[in-house]
């Protein structure tokens, strides 16, 4: 028999993403989410206490009825099942964290609750690119490549132009493209490699060196510049190092002012929950959205005919919502 909090927990299982603020460790984010979810689950109405029949003794005076039985049957609640005695129904929830973000960086962080951890494992194993925006500043070099580190070098940056910057970025992108081909483990002179390259499926299997698949300067106003990066198997420290190396390549120095992840696979900024919304109800909504999106994708791949797709799209979305609701209702039972 499912209690309300178990039903609520069923609706919580799945993947969702949060927006991690910078300056906060990801473990703290995870723990906060777990605490908030537990709070939400405990707030769900508890089961009414089961009743049990007990014989209660009444204080009957001796003179009145010495022979009569001083007992009466009464139905009393079983206190050993009281929530104050048993404690909260859920004391731990499995909350898994996807690709990590270090304390300095901010952005989309994928989390999984309960059964969603299996999906999270699969998600981590698939080769998906992640998008970042890097903010850099010319003129200083620091020991940990971020602007808060100890300054080890200062330099001028007046000679840097957007043109020079683009040239360096193109060179870096080319080098990374070459690394991508090298790590993809297919013979480059084969039909298979050609087919994979056409579909954009070339890439490393599993672990590899960090590879930048796309690099673009979106904002250039010396000394500040902003880069947009898509990459595989990266760490945030590596990305800061990229900024540093761009500075060196431009005969200057650069430090990274911010690393912000804008996309982790299919999870984008739009789906991310900011820290005001890290509550059970918002997480349930986000997870329902994730499930409906997954169903939608599945039904779209079923429909092969592009002519039907536009007309069917509205109906499929409504149908998916219905099925999503039905699924939610199904778990309630």
């Amino acid at each position, binding site marked *: 028999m499912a209690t309300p909090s178990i039903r609520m927990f069923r609706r919580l299982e799945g993947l969702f993403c949060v927006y991690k603020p910078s*300056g906060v460790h990801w473990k703290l984010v995870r723990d906060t989410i777990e605490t908030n979810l537990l709070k939400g689950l405990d707030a769900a109405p508890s089961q009414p206490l089961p009743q049990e029949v007990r014989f209660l003794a009444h204080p009957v005076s001796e003179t009145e009825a010495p022979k009569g*039985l001083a007992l009466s049957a009464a139905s009393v609640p*079983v*206190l050993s099942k009281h929530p*104050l*005695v*048993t404690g909260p129904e859920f004391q731990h929830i499995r909350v898994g964290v996807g690709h990590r973000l270090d304390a300095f960086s901010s952005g989309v962080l994928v989390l999984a609750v309960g059964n969603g951890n299996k999906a999270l494992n699969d998600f981590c194993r698939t080769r998906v690119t992640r998008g970042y925006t890097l903010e850099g500043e010319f003129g200083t070099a620091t020991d940990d490549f971020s602007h808060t580190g100890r300054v080890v070098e200062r330099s001028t940056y007046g000679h840097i132009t957007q043109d020079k910057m683009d040239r360096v970025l193109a060179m870096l992108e080319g080098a990374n493209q070459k690394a991508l081909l090298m790590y993809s483990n297919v013979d480059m002179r084969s039909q298979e490699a050609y087919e994979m390259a056409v579909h954009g499926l070339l890439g490393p299997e599993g672990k590899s060196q960090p590879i930048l698949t796309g690099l673009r300067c979106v904002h250039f106003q010396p000394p500040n510049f902003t880069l947009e990066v898509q990459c595989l198997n990266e760490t945030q420290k590596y990305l800061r190092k990229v900024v540093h190396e761009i500075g060196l390549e431009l005969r200057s120095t650069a430090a990274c002012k911010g690393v*912000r992840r804008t996309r982790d696979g299919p999870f984008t900024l739009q789906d991310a929950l900011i*820290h*005001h919304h890290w509550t059970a109800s918002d997480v349930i909504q986000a997870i329902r959205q994730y499930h409906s999106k997954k169903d939608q994708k599945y039904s779209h791949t079923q429909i092969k005919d592009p002519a039907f797709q536009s007309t069917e799209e509205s109906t499929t979305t409504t149908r998916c919502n219905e099925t999503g609701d039905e699924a939610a209702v199904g778990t309630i039972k």
Partner: protein
Amino acid sequence: MAMASSCTQLCLQCRSLLCSKTVANTWQYYTQVRHCIRVTRVPTKILDGSSIIKGNHVTNQARQMRKQQMFCYSDLAAKHLATEAKEDKDVETSRADVVAYKSPLLPIRDAVPEIQVSLDLDTAAEFSALEVISDEEAVSISVPSAMPPASTSLRDYVDQSETLSKLVQLGVNLWKLEQRPNVGSMLLRLNFNTDVAPRLLFLKEIGVEDSRFGYIITHNPFILTESLENLQSRVNYLKSKKFSSENVASMVSRAPYLLNFSVKRLDNRLGFYQQQLKLSASNTRNIVARLPRLLCGSLESVKDNLKVCEIELGFKENEIQHIVIAVPKVLTANKRKLIQIFDYLHNIMKVPHNLIAKFPQVLNTKYLRVRERHLFLEYLGKAQYDPTLPNYLSLDRLVSLPDEIFCTELALATLEDFYLFQKTL
């Protein structure tokens, strides 16, 4: 019965194995054993059953004579038994030996403990199970409840213990209490009428609301073991220090450990705050009444925080006094968080010391909250905290307003924009 049959079996066995040589001896032994069985039956006072037993005994013997080939015993053990029986002339000792030796050897040894238990019950029990008893007697028979003698949880005792069930009805969180060492057994030893009720009445007398009882006992179960005179003397002490009775009641209900501290300790702490902060008596009373936790917690962290404010943050003495009177919580705040938020206010938002001392509430807020609001205002070009310049925003309004009002009144933007902006940080 089982013992009798086992004895016969033993005899049979002896006879079957040793019949060629010591037939006469074993027969003698057999009669001895049978005699001893009769002897043991006499004190159990089942006289009318003895003939039946004997009859059974005989039939058993006959049956087992037919089955004697099926018994498989070690020769050595059987011989040992037989010789033992031969040598022993005394009936009682031979019986004891037989009983002692048969248990590891005989296939029907399962019956041995059974027969012993039943023999004990026969001698001990006064009533027969079939005797008719009256209703009064039936009620007076105490049925041992299913309470385990030892348990890791109070859950097993709640339904039986009056104290525990009353405490649950008061709203005490037993689950939290049982996790603390020794508290569970302490609670079980209490008697509701003599231990718990007088203290609750005392608390009610000094003005604590009924709804706070659960909170107080959940946090400090030891108030139930404190003597009433001690509690009364501590309340009297607080009143002698000119705390009003409402103040005492609210202090006790917010800081449950307050009444467990001796008068001397309370006096030391009040003195500490008054001297360290150089406050007047009424101001000391004021901050202690607002944050009674100050009297219960450790003084080391308070000293640390005062040093941090004075040396690391660079506040002057009168500024610290003002901050503490306005926000006593600064004294118990986390040192690291205090420094972090001051660093942001002073070095990034460029707020001078005197402004922070004027609005000490900002030291009590969350770092993230200040940061995101400041960055939003800065993005909109409205971050202006200097009271001498136009478009001044006061610091306490910056941190104390809820998000909706902050957006509409200070930032003049919508809440959605504010949330979207947070995703760009």
